[in-house]
C-alpha cells in the first residue's frame, strides 16, 4: 500500500499546481455563492433558511465539474507515456488506481469543506439542525467519491482527456436522472424500471442525506459504486498491458 500513498501525494501536489483545479474551485465557489445569496433572498420572510440547499446545488454542479478534475487522471499518463513508468514500478495496478482516486477524492473533499463557510453564515441568523447538516455532508462526500470513480473509469478508457471528460459528464448526467429515466422502462417491466431507478445518483441523497436521514442502503450504494468503478478501472489498466 506504500504505492497508494506515494501516488496520492503526487496527485495532491498536482492539484495545487494545476490551473484547472483552481478554475474548478473558482467556478464552484462563485456559483455556490450566487446560489446561496439568491436562495436566502427568496426565502426571506417566506420560508426557513435551509443549510442543505447549498449541498444539493454542490452535488448537482459536480456532475459537470468533477469530470474536469478526473478526465486527466489516467488519460494524461497514457498520452504522455508516463504510464509506462508507473506500470514498470514495483507496485500493483490497483495501487496506481487507488492512489489517484484518493487524491481526486481528497481534493473534492477540500472543495466540499469550503462550503462550510455558508453554514457558518447560516449560524449567525438561524438555528439549523446541526445533525441534519452533518448527515448531508457525509452523504455528499460519499456521492462525490462515486462521481469521481465514474470519471476515473472513463479517463482510463481513452488517451483523450476531452473525450474522457465528455463521456463522464454524459454518463453522470444520465445516472443523476436515473430515477426519472427509470419511468421509461415501465413498459419493459416493473423490475427493469426499479433497477434503473435504483441507480439514480441523486435519489440516494436527495431523499435521505439532504433531509438529515442516514440510510445504510445509500451508504452501500455509493461505496458499492466506487468499488465497482475502481475495480473496472483497474481491469482496464491491466488490459492495456495486453493490448500494448
Amino acid at each position, binding site marked *: 500500500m506504500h504505492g497508494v500513498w506515494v501516488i496520492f501525494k503526487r496527485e495532491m501536489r498536482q492539484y495545487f*499546481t494545476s490551473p484547472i483545479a483552481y478554475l474548478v474551485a473558482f467556478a464552484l465557489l462563485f456559483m455556490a455563492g450566487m446560489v446561496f445569496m439568491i436562495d436566502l433572498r427568496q426565502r426571506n420572510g417566506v420560508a426557513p433558511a435551509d443549510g442543505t440547499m447549498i449541498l444539493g446545488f454542490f452535488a448537482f454542479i459536480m456532475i459537470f465539474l468533477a469530470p474536469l478534475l478526473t478526465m486527466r487522471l489516467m488519460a494524461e499518463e497514457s498520452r504522455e507515456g*508516463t*504510464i509506462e513508468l508507473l506500470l514498470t514500478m514495483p507496485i500493483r495496478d490497483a495501487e496506481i488506481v487507488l492512489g489517484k482516486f484518493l487524491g481526486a477524492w481528497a481534493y473534492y473533499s477540500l472543495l466540499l469543506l469550503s462550503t462550510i463557510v455558508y453554514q457558518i453564515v447560516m449560524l449567525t441568523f438561524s438555528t439549523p439542525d446541526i445533525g441534519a447538516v452533518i448527515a448531508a455532508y457525509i452523504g455528499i462526500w460519499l456521492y462525490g467519491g462515486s462521481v469521481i470513480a465514474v470519471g476515473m473509469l472513463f479517463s482510463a478508457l481513452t488517451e483523450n482527456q476531452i473525450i474522457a471528460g465528455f463521456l463522464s459528464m454524459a454518463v453522470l448526467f444520465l445516472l443523476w436522472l436515473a430515477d426519472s429515466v427509470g419511468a421509461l422502462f415501465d413498459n419493459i417491466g416493473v423490475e427493469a424500471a426499479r433497477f434503473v431507478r435504483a441507480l439514480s445518483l441523486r435519489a440516494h441523497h436527495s431523499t435521505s442525506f439532504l433531509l438529515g436521514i442516514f440510510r445504510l442502503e445509500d451508504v452501500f450504494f455509493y461505496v458499492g459504486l466506487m468499488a465497482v468503478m475502481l475495480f473496472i478501472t483497474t481491469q482496464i489498466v491491466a488490459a492495456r498491458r495486453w493490448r*500494448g
Partner: protein
Amino acid sequence: MIEVRHLTKKYGSFTAVDDISFTAQPGEILGFLGPNGAGKTTTMRVLTGYMPPTSGVVRVAGWDIFEESLDARRHIGYLPETVPLYPDMTVRGYVDFVADLRRVPKRRARVDEVLARVGMTERANSLIRNISKGMRQRVGLAQALVHDPEVLILDEPTIGLDPHQVIEVRQLVRELGQDRTLMFSTHILSEAEQVCDRVLIIEGGRIVAEGSPQTLRDRLQRGGRVYLRLEQTPPQGDVIAALEATGGVEAAAPEGDGYLIQLARGTDARGDIVETMLAHGWRVIELRPWAMTLEEIFLELTTAELAAPLRSGGRPKKPKKKAAKRRSKR
C-alpha cells in the same frame, strides 16, 4: 542477469517478436540493434514487465517477469524510448517520486547522488518542462538508476540528442555497464560497435545475428577484402580488368578514390596485386584490409540469402516476403 527463452509477442495477428532467446550476464553491455519496427521496444517492454509475453519465459535477476513481476521489477531500471517525465515537476521532485515508489533507503542522499552522477545537480530545482532534451534524457537515466538496479534496460538512450550529448550518454552507459547487466537498444550501428560487449541484431522480430562486434565482423570477412589506391588515375575499366586477371582476386570494384577488391577464400593476393599494378606502371599508394562496418554487416544480414548461414541458432530462417521483395528489386 537477463534470461529470455522463446519469447514471442503478438499484437492481434501481427507478430512483433518471434521466438527469440538470449541471455545477458552481469557486467555485460548487450546491444540490441535493429531498424525501427524490428521489435526492439516490444522486447524491452516485455523484459521490464510493462506488457506480458504471448509465449515464452523471461527471467530478470532470477525472477520470472510474469509470475513474479513485482520482485523482478524491483531489480530493473528502465528508460523507455519516450522518457516518461512529468513536466510540472522539478527534476529533484521527479527523481524523488520514483525513489519513493521504489522505497529507496536514505532517499534524499541517494537522489542527490544520482543527480550528481548524471550531471543534473545544478538544475535539480528546475521544472522539467524548462530543461533541454539532453537534460531530460539524463533525468530519465537518473530515474532508472536511483535504486541501483541489477539490470538496466535503456531504450534508444541517445535518440534525439546532439553529438556532444550522444558522446556523454555513451560514456555514461559504458560506466554503468561495468557492475551490472545493461541492455540498450539502438538503430545506430557505430554506437553498438563502440559501446557494447555483445550485439544482438534483430530484424522482423527475429534475432538474425549475435556476437561481439568483432566476431560479427570477422564472420563476414569471407575471403577478406582489401582497399587499393593508386597514385595515377588510369581508366577504371583497365584497372579492374588487370585486377581480376590477377590470381587470388575474386572481384574488384571502384570505391571512393580507389578500388575495393574481394580476395578468394584462403588466399592473400596482396603481393601479387602490387606486382601487377607495377607491371602496368601504376604505383600503389595505399593497400589496406577493408574492415566491414556494422552498417554493411547489417545490410548483408538483413537480406535473407546471407543471413541463413550466419544464424547462431542454426534453425533455418523461413523465407520472408519482405526479403524476397527486396531481392527482386535488385
